[in-house]
C-alpha cells in the first residue's frame, strides 16, 4: 500500500475515532474547564496527529493510547463528583485577587499576575477603575470574575422596586416554513391554532421563515418576503388602552352627574378600575 493511501485511510479512521471520543468525553471537555481537561485535549490531539502523519507507527498502539486517554478522564471526572478534596487537587482552587475593594498583592504574586494583567482583566469586565470593584476572583480556568460595588452594579427591576411579569421561554413553532409539532405541544397548542393565527395575519405558512409563541400565546412571525409587513401582536396593548379609556370615562361621568348616588357609583368603579390597571400593567407591557 503506498504511503499516501495509508495516510488518507488513517486520517479518515482517526477522524471518526476522535469524533466519537470527543462525544464520549462530553460538553465539558469542549470548554476545557480545568487543568486535566486541558491536558487531555492536547494529548489526544497529539496522539492522533502522530499516527495520522507517520505511517511507520503502528496504528493499533494509537488506538490503545486513545482508549487510555478516554477512560482516565472519565474515571477522574467520576472521582471528582465523589470527593471535594480530589476536586481541589485536580481542578485547582480559586484565588481571590480583590477583597473588600482592596487588592491582594500576595495572591497576585502567587499567581504571577502583574498589575497590568489585573487591569487588563478588569477592563475585560468593563471596569476601568479599580475602585469600582468589591471582589474579584481568579477561577481555576484562568478567567477573572468580578463583583462590582453595589452602586456600580447594573440596575435591575428589584433595585428600582418595580414589579415585572414573569416570562417563560418562548417556543419556536415554525422554522423554514414548516410547523414544528413538539414545541407546539410544549405550548399546549396545535396546528389548527397555528393555522388560525396565521390566517388572521393573512400569511401562508410557506412564507413564514420563523415563528415564535410566548407563554401568553402571542405569536410573532418573520416572513421570507421582507416587503410584507406583519401585524405585531396587539391584543394586550389594546386591552390596556381600553381599560384606561373606561377608567377615564367613569371619572368623567362622576364629574358630570349631579345625582349623588350615581356620582359615588362612578367614583367607586373608577377607583376599582384604576387598581386593576395598576395590577395588570406589568403583564400587558
Amino acid at each position, binding site marked *: 500500500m503506498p504511503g499516501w493511501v495509508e495516510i488518507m485511510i488513517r486520517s479518515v479512521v482517526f477522524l471518526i475515532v476522535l469524533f466519537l471520543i470527543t462525544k464520549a468525553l462530553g460538553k465539558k471537555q469542549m470548554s476545557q474547564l480545568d487543568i486535566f481537561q486541558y491536558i487531555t485535549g492536547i494529548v489526544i490531539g497529539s496522539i492522533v496527529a502522530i499516527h495520522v502523519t507517520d505511517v511507520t507507527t503502528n496504528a493499533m498502539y494509537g488506538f490503545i493510547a486513545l482508549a487510555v486517554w478516554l477512560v482516565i478522564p472519565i474515571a477522574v471526572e467520576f472521582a471528582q463528583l465523589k470527593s471535594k478534596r480530589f476536586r481541589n487537587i485536580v481542578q485547582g482552587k480559586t484565588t481571590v485577587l480583590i477583597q473588600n475593594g482592596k487588592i491582594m498583592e500576595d495572591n497576585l504574586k502567587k499567581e504571577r499576575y502583574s498589575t497590568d494583567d489585573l487591569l487588563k482583566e478588569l477592563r475585560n469586565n468593563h471596569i476601568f477603575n479599580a475602585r469600582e470593584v468589591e471582589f474579584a476572583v481568579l477561577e481555576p480556568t484562568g478567567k477573572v470574575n468580578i463583583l462590582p460595588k453595589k452602586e456600580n452594579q447594573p440596575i435591575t427591576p428589584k433595585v428600582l422596586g418595580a414589579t415585572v411579569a414573569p416570562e417563560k421561554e418562548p417556543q419556536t413553532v415554525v422554522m423554514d416554513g414548516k410547523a414544528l409539532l413538539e414545541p407546539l405541544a410544549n405550548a399546549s397548542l396545535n396546528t389548527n391554532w397555528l393555522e388560525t393565527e396565521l390566517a388572521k395575519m393573512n400569511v401562508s405558512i410557506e412564507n413564514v421563515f420563523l415563528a415564535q409563541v410566548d407563554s401568553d400565546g402571542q405569536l410573532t412571525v418573520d416572513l421570507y418576503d421582507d416587503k410584507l409587513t406583519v401585524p405585531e401582536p396587539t391584543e394586550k396593548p389594546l386591552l390596556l388602552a381600553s381599560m384606561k379609556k373606561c377608567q377615564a370615562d367613569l371619572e368623567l361621568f362622576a364629574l358630570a352627574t349631579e345625582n349623588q348616588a350615581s356620582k359615588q357609583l362612578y367614583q367607586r*368603579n373608577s377607583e376599582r378600575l384604576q387598581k386593576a390597571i395598576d395590577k395588570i400593567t406589568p403583564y400587558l407591557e
Partner: protein
Amino acid sequence: MTVSSQVKGCFSSIKSIEATLQSLSAKTSDQEADKVFKEVRNTIRTVQNDLESQVLHLTKEEPQYKS
C-alpha cells in the same frame, strides 16, 4: 349623545375587556399571570355589575331615549 348612551358604551367596553381577560387567562401557560388575569377579571366583573344596574337606572330616567 345622551349620558345614558355614553354609559352604555362604557358598559360594552367593560364587557369586551372582561372577555379579553378571559381569553388571555385561557391562553397563558404561566400560573402567576393566570392568577393576576383572573383577579383582575373578578374586579372587572364587579364593575360590570354596578354599571349594569346604573344602565337600567338611566334607561328608567330617560325613557324617551330607550333603545
